[in-house]
């Protein structure tokens, strides 16, 4: 008997946009058991060796497998299937660009809506967390070898988790006073509650990973010192240095990098000023330059700290925006305004040096560039001004060079990313790297995937002592 095809996606309960722009609570509330079961039942269970969703997933989670476990009401089973290749499902379920990965390939897309894989993954992780369930882990006996991990973002956390399970003595060094990298200082609470990140970190502590906060490698310890004390080092230092455009007026007051704006809000809790000591400038109108996830996060955070009118200024058109579909939709629902085909050419301030106007020029789309996207070309004579109280630059980040500026052995590309080969080996013996530090701005799931593969390579190196004469650069 043919199965009934359920074409429509089961909607995810969300906070009302009118209310949520006044709080930092999570926007998407997630599926209940009933809704999750209904959505899971839409999956037609493609066989594992064929399932296109698995192929679309950068870490190849067995998606039909865990969905089946949801139908069987087996949270632990579902969690264990995911954990085989993804140690942070509560996080990836919330922040992965599923529409470009697993969900893009979903066969159901030909018949109706694609399965909401992300929300089902999140459901499994959240239920497991509520019930205090962890996947069964087999811990290899301690082998007496030590590995240092630099940076506590998803790349570092994943590498640490795998290595500690293999029997290594693992210490993670983090420059900031809190653990999680971008997950803690960048992505806002309303999209990724910090309790979830803390829960994952606590779990790693419980299985033996050691954490040292407030330690900047390159300053507090040098990389050379780490190599004396540890058998291998993994660099998961991310791409944390914000870019600015060197335009007239770029250093006027009220002009932020997205990193500063989001760090003040997320890490330092400026939205609770003066209960918390770190302030953030408030005003009526704020403009964000850029249209990726970072830009959406800045725009939506601005609404929540009290800006009444928030603009996204983007140099190309809607279809080229790089943010996750869900973030763009949420931003629109919340009243963020989008202005396309504009580029900033300067900023005008008042007598006290506060930014008052962004000067913009209109673009048209020209020939495709290296990335295949059509290049914005300014149209002469179309300059105009937009009055603002604050501006946030969200035009990209590059790797932070603090760690390697005094380590000539470490080769970097012309984008400032570390050179590594297919086994994540850098040009310095015993030093591995992954995540945004080697990819430039990328995604959580790819950083995690790198951490996992690097952990394997580190294990192999420590066991065999083999290191190639020459590092053949892997391109990302």
């Amino acid at each position, binding site marked *: 008997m043919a199965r009934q095809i359920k074409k429509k996606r089961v909607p995810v309960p969300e906070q009302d946009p009118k209310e949520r722009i006044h709080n930092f609570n999570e926007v998407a509330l997630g599926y209940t058991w009933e809704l999750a079961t209904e959505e899971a039942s839409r999956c037609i269970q493609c066989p594992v060796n064929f399932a296109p969703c698995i192929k679309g997933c950068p870490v190849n989670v067995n998606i039909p497998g865990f969905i089946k476990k949801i139908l069987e009401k087996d949270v632990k089973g579902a969690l264990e299937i995911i954990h085989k290749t993804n140690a942070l499902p509560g996080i990836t379920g919330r922040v992965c660009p599923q529409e470009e990965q697993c969900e893009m390939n979903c066969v159901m897309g030909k018949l109706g809506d694609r399965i909401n894989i992300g929300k089902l993954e999140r459901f499994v992780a959240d239920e497991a967390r509520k019930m205090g369930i962890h996947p069964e882990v087999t811990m290899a006996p301690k082998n007496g070898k030590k590995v240092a991990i630099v940076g506590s973002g998803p790349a570092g956390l994943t590498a640490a988790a795998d290595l500690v399970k293999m029997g290594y003595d693992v210490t993670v060094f983090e420059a900031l006073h809190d653990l999680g990298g971008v997950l803690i200082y960048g992505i806002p609470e309303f999209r990724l509650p910090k309790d979830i990140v803390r829960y994952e970190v606590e779990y790693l502590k419980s299985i033996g990973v050691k954490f040292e906060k407030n330690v900047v490698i390159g300053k507090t310890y040098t990389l050379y010192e780490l190599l004396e004390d540890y058998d291998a080092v993994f660099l998961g230092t991310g791409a944390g240095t914000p870019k600015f455009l060197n335009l007239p007026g770029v250093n006027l007051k009220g002009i932020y990098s997205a990193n500063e704006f989001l760090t003040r809000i997320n890490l330092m809790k400026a939205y609770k000023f003066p209960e*918390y*000591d770190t302030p953030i400038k408030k005003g009526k109108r704020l403009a964000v330059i850029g249209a990726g996830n970072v830009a959406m996060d800045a725009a939506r955070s601005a609404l929540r700290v009290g800006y009444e009118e928030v603009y996204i200024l983007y140099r190309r058109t809607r279809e080229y925006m790089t943010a996750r579909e869900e973030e763009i939709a949420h931003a629109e629902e919340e009243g963020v305004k989008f202005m396309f085909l504009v580029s900033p050419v300067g900023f005008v301030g008042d007598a006290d*040096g506060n930014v008052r106007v962004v000067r913009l020029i209109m673009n048209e789309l020209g020939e495709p560039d290296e990335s295949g996207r059509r290049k914005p070309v300014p149209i002469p004579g179309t300059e105009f001004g937009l009055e603002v109280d604050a501006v946030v630059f969200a035009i990209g980040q590059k790797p932070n060079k603090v760690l390697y500026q005094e380590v000539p052995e470490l080769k970097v590309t012309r984008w400032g990313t570390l050179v590594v080969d297919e086994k994540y080996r850098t040009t310095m013996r015993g030093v591995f790297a992954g995540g945004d530090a080697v990819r430039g701005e990328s995604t959580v799931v790819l950083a995690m995937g790198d951490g996992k593969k690097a952990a394997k390579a580190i294990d192999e190196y420590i066991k065999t002592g083999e290191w190639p004469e020459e590092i053949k650069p892997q391109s990302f």
Partner: protein
Amino acid sequence: MFEILDKKILAPNIKWIRVHAPLVARSAHAGQFIVLRLHERGERIPLTLFKWSKEEGSIELVFQEVGKTTYELGSYDPGDKIMDIVGPLGKPTHIENYGTAVIVSGGVGAPIGYAVTKALKDAGNHVVSIIGFRSKQYVILEDEFRKVSDELLITTDDGSYVRKGFTTDVLKEYLEKGGKADYVFTVGPVIMMKLIAKITKEYGIKTDASLNPIMVDGTGMCGACRVTVGGEIKFACVDGPDFDAHQVDFDELMSRLVEYRPEEKIALDRYVKGVR
């Protein structure tokens, strides 16, 4: 947690503390700073390393109470703990034997000036220290400077101690009288550094200034500390804090430093009223 080991009041609203921070002490160099956060709700603020001892695992800081965080820190006593301290941050001051080095420090720039003076002295320079304060009661670190300087020139704005005048007046007189200066290092109020740079530019003397913009992380991650040097954007926490004083846009720095004045007032008023 980082325990305060010792504390002294050096002048009205200027305090000295010694803090247990062995990891910072073991790799500190002159000109570097730390970023601290007092407690869970605290902000991150930078303070310069005045002295440090590897053996004792301690660092010394001198700070002026100017706002909520520094007043609150000033209320801490030995035995109290600071939640987070990270460092040493920033590039160490470039130290070499220039011949004669003149270090011009103003107000609470003095602790930074001291660390650099000592390092320049240790490197074999003939060291001339010029230190300036508002008035007699604000004079700090005189004995420390005397120990590491070949010549020590003190001035007060109101003439209540040694002489009347700004550090700029003292430097100008020194140079006019034919005093030697192969290198000048300056640290203190921005307006002072700007004017010192103007004088040394006329004389063509290589000059570094230690800049003090608002910082958040102190690790190159946010750009709050950006300054314009030679027309380029630099992050003071990782590219500095020392820069070629003849290239720095001091007016921009001055403007950016008061960005949060209204908010700082709110925070301080609330603190003074005892709201925690």
